[in-house]
């Protein structure tokens, strides 16, 4: 993965594959502590203890189509490469929470990439899912929510081309704190 926005897309796609109806993505920058914390939580089917234990193993997957499961292990590696941390919480019926913390002053920190394109791709692919993006930098915070956008769409669907300028406008507002 070239940048963090692609990791976010990948992990959120896991949430959607786990039948989540709500996905919350948090991006928290702490300029004093020089950290970037990424949290992706969902209300999907969750994992049992055994699956959770093996979830970061690249040679473990629950998928039927292939024998490797690189998504979480690549994100964990990207966090560890900066001296950061990675954690995973999950319970069947509760959902899953993925947390990756990066040291922003480390050489190996990947660029953030295009968060807007990641969010738009998730919305277009899964317009029925409630997506919330919370962007925090120190004491400032902005929230993007598909429910808020829907309220302004006057009947247009989230995945209609006509809705895209409004979605992008809301995302850009959340990105530019």
């Amino acid at each position, binding site marked *: 993965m070239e940048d963090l926005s692609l990791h976010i897309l990948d992990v959120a796609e896991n949430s959607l594959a786990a039948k989540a109806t709500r996905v919350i993505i948090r991006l928290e920058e702490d300029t004093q502590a020089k950290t970037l914390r990424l949290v992706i939580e969902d209300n999907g089917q969750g994992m049992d203890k055994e699956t959770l234990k093996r979830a970061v193993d690249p040679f473990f997957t629950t998928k039927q189509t292939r024998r490797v*499961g690189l998504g979480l292990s690549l994100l964990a590696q990207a966090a560890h490469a900066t001296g950061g941390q990675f954690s995973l919480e999950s319970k069947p019926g509760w959902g899953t929470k993925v947390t990756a913390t990066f040291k922003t002053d480390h050489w190996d920190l990947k660029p953030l990439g295009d968060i807007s394109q990641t969010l738009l791709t998730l919305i277009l692919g899964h317009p029925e899912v409630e997506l919330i993006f919370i962007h925090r930098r120190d004491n400032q915070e902005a929230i993007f929510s598909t429910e808020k956008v829907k309220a302004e769409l006057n009947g247009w*669907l989230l995945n209609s081309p006509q809705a895209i300028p409004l979605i992008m406008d809301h995302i850009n507002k959340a990105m530019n704190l």
Partner: protein
Amino acid sequence: MPKLTIEELEKLRERAKKATFLRETTDYRAKITVHMGTCGIAAGAREIMNAFLQELQARDITDVLLTNSGCAGLCSREPMATIEIKGQAPVKYVDLTPEKVKQIFEKHVLGGEIVQDYALGIGSEKTDY
């Protein structure tokens, strides 16, 4: 209350028509599915999704569904997309680039003609979800 002109009524009708866009899952003439597994994303699937979106927006097309799916197990041929014209068998395209997307969109989605040079085969596949 001021009277509505024919033009205004026409605009309202058009708007109401568009508002029902893809409300029903069967209400489209073509479906484009971009494969968005870890392998697809690492190979550029998001860019491919965006390229299809640009084509839809540029032509103001509202009856083509753009969506995504998981990994289909052919990771080495990503980015991949499946085009399904209503009433026809789905066609899977592999090793995509934005330039190929443009050709596939014009010839297959709009013209109904399969771009054989980029197509892997005809038929559905099993994906992760």
